[in-house]
């Protein structure tokens, strides 16, 4: 087996204990439910028989290891319980709502790169001049703009004042879908882009000063060929790592903007369920969103190992 494949496998093996801890945490959530957990899960309007059914199904009368084993069995079979408000199975809800979240996540990552990478180059190439200094000061400020507030302000300015784009809900059709995604993606992208820009600027700065670039220049590499072979290849890995590490907050950003723009995604489902104490939905979504973040982080590391042969993990 090649060294890189081995590295990738080792990184994936590191994921297992984290996933197990996530399962344990999500399982343990019910232990900290105030009052009678079975009653909370069954919902406020449940009858005594329904509460009894929940207690029996989730194994509240059984010892904890047995209950955890049956929880694991349910999860591996894709059974994540039933919403106590809509009586919809949680797995079905997730399948229904995942496309919106996926679209926002992909769109947001694309926006982040499209804004962040050129900005980072600009900062690196003009380092030390007044305009680059001013730009980095603005970037630091932008990082501290809360996504929910930015989304709200964008929806007022672009959506309501100019009336160009939808500000809430999904418009029908493919064009409508894309139009509905523009403002949410822009919101997340704007908040996340400064991180990428900073990272790109730092790595480009280091690379421009390095010996191999001087050598390449002396060998008359310039323009696109210098950019592609020497600069981009070396600047990309740290940026990918950063983006993968930011996956958590990017996803949280998606959670936030879905609710601001009233889009039916996983994040708005989580927030609605949280606000209405719909425990099974909270549990199921935490598990799925959490596992997604863990896997994206690992995938980012593996991608870096493929992009950069110097990668070592200890």
């Amino acid at each position, binding site marked *: 087996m090649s060294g890189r494949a081995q590295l990738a496998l080792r990184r994936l093996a590191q994921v297992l204990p984290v996933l197990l801890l996530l399962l344990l945490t999500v399982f343990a959530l019910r232990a900290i439910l105030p009052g009678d957990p079975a009653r909370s899960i069954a919902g406020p309007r449940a009858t005594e028989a329904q509460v009894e059914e929940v207690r029996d199904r989730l194994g509240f009368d059984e010892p904890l290891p047995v209950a955890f084993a049956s929880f694991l069995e349910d999860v591996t079979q894709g059974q994540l319980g039933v919403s106590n408000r809509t009586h919809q199975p949680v797995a079905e809800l997730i399948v229904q709502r995942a496309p919106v979240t996926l679209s926002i996540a992909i769109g947001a990552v694309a926006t982040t790169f499209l804004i962040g990478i050129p900005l980072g180059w600009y900062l690196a190439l003009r380092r030390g001049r007044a305009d680059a200094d001013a730009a980095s000061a603005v970037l630091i400020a932008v990082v501290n703009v809360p996504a929910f507030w930015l989304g709200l302000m964008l929806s007022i300015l672009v959506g309501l004042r100019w009336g160009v784009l939808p500000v809430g809900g999904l418009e029908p059709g493919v064009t409508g879908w894309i139009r509905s995604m523009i403002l949410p993606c822009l919101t997340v992208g704007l908040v996340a882009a400064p991180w990428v820009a900073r990272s790109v600027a730092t790595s480009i700065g280091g690379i421009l000063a390095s010996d191999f670039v001087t050598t390449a220049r002396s060998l008359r590499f310039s323009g696109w060929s210098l950019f592609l072979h020497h600069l981009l290849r070396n600047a990309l890995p740290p940026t990918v790592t950063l983006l993968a590490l930011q996956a958590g907050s990017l996803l949280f950003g998606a*959670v936030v903007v879905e609710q601001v723009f009233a889009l039916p995604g996983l994040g708005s489902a989580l927030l609605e369920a949280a606000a209405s104490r719909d425990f099974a939905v*909270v549990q199921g979504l935490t598990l799925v969103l959490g596992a997604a973040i863990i896997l994206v982080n690992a995938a980012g590391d593996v991608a870096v190992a493929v992009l950069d042969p110097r990668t070592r993990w200890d």
Partner: protein
Amino acid sequence: MRLWPFGVVIISAAVAAALLAPWLAPYPPGEQNLTAINQAPSVEHWFGTDPLGRDVLSRMMYALRTDLALVVPAAGIPLLLGGLIGGAAAYVGGIFDTGVRWALDVFQGMPAYVLLVALVAVLGNGASSLLIAFTLMGWIVYARIARTEVRRVREDNYVLAAYLSGTPRMLVFFRHVIPNSRAQLMAYFVTDMGMALQIIAGLSFFGLGVSQETPELGAMIADARLYIQTNLWLGLFPGVALVLLGLSMASIGDAMRERRR
């Protein structure tokens, strides 16, 4: 560009406004004046009024009280807990340190934001649920920093000198090791307060923070949502306050981190 002096000014002003709100606020935070609703900024109401005719500036001063009172323990309790765990692990070493290092590696992979929402959802609204959630999710970074710093300090000559002069190990830890490994922890603490502020405001915006009646910056923005089309000021002032406070804490934290390098 050095932003931190501005940060210090802004934070001092915010702390003063929060502490002195009962004396400085021009109106009581809940006082409704239905003859003056949804007003733009004016001489009587510097930041305008909300749909119930309440003075926005006064409400923001009380909101700062709520937010700052939450943010300090939301970062401070994880600081104490994580700092102690990480610091002790590095100081004692051996199996304990190996165990803590392994736990940190696993915990660091956990999706903190999602679990934060889930914890608050399960525990219910209110300050104590927020603090429990922040403590459970927040100690990890502090423990990691403390572990690195104590490992660095523990080999220093003055620590060795303290041992050789017969000082008990516990006393060396508290008298020499902790004071000298504190700087990076404090720098992260300031940065972390800024992040906690954003998250608390975000959770409150979605109705998951403190109770609805308490004035809070995120909740004020949420309240403004329905009226923001006619009165943009309503959402503008609390939002700008959040940006300025976050920026200030981040720049002070950055400056503290770099000073020690």
